[in-house]
């Protein structure tokens, strides 16, 4: 009897381990990772995170899935961990929709949305890693970026 219980327990161990790993991994994904830092702010600029609107300050950490908004006199500049540099002019709405970067081999992918306003970009390691790795999306078009400096303007609803 006792030996059967022990055998059952032993059989359950892999399942239990898998469940623990899954729980740990899920917890890891729940918190979005740091992908960059706010380096310049003028006027009104906010980070929208999980529905909360946080006034942006120089030195603030930026996370994957954050949205960035600027007011009528606002601008903001952000540097990402792959050395991509982005800055937005007034009345802009951006979303850092997807980002992953491996700093040991400099590979990664990123997708940034610009819903309206102006955006200036100096691309970093991700855009160098492969031709389709860096994408910027406007409400109707999609940009594929290969190692360059560029600007995007989106005219929002008026």
């Amino acid at each position, binding site marked *: 009897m006792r030996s059967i219980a022990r055998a059952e327990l032993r059989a359950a161990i892999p399942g239990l381990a898998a469940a623990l790993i899954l729980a740990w991994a899920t917890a890891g994904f729940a918190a979005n990772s740091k992908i960059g830092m706010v380096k310049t702010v003028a006027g009104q600029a906010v980070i929208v995170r999980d529905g909360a609107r946080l006034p942006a300050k120089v030195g603030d950490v930026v996370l994957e899935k954050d949205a960035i908004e600027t007011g009528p006199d606002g601008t903001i500049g952000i540097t990402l961990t792959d050395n991509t540099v982005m800055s937005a002019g007034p009345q802009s709405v951006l979303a850092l929709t997807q980002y992953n970067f491996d700093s040991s081999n400099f590979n990664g992918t990123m997708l940034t949305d610009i819903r309206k306003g102006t955006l200036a970009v100096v691309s970093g390691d991700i855009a160098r890693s492969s031709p389709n790795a860096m994408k910027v999306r406007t409400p109707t078009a999609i940009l594929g*970026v290969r190692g360059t400096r560029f*600007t995007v303007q989106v005219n929002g609803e008026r």
Partner: protein
Amino acid sequence: MRRIVLLSLVLAALTACTEPRQALVVVLPNPDGGSGAVTVTEGDKSVLLDQPYAATEVRGGAVAAVKLPSEQVQQIFGQALAARPILPSQFMLYFISDSDQLTPESQRQYRAVFEDIKRRPAYEVEVVGHTDTLGDRTYNQQLSLQRARAIRDQLVRDGLEARAISTAGRGALDLAVQTGDQVSEPRNRRVVITVR
């Protein structure tokens, strides 16, 4: 019949012109005067921008190349461009064999690294240490990390914030100059410092 076709073509062209511009994309020159490339795709149509100041606009769901004078680029994007952070920079400092002491030349270069970090309002610094292939793997891993930490400690002594500086050691895994095993190579005994 032909007249009607022509008329509708003209009308379509006119509508496209009067539709508001939905998006504008401009490729800017790199510091060397050249540029990389941006592909703008709308539906099944793509435009490749691979020259400095090449521009395209999306209007009425159609993507088309446009000419944009540089003063107009400045007018539309001036504020976004002015908000651009100081661009990241990268430095290499070199070490005396089997030590975490900088070579005399790198000691002088260190000052430039420090000044570059200090001018940034919110800095992040990554220091990654490396060794040449002389010595065994475990020892080199340790030595490379020790080199990175020596630089961090110096930056902190000079007044920078420790929590803004990360360190890592790569041993002889990422050689700057490829050599065989057990080769003394000054250019591989280094730290790579990325400043953002």
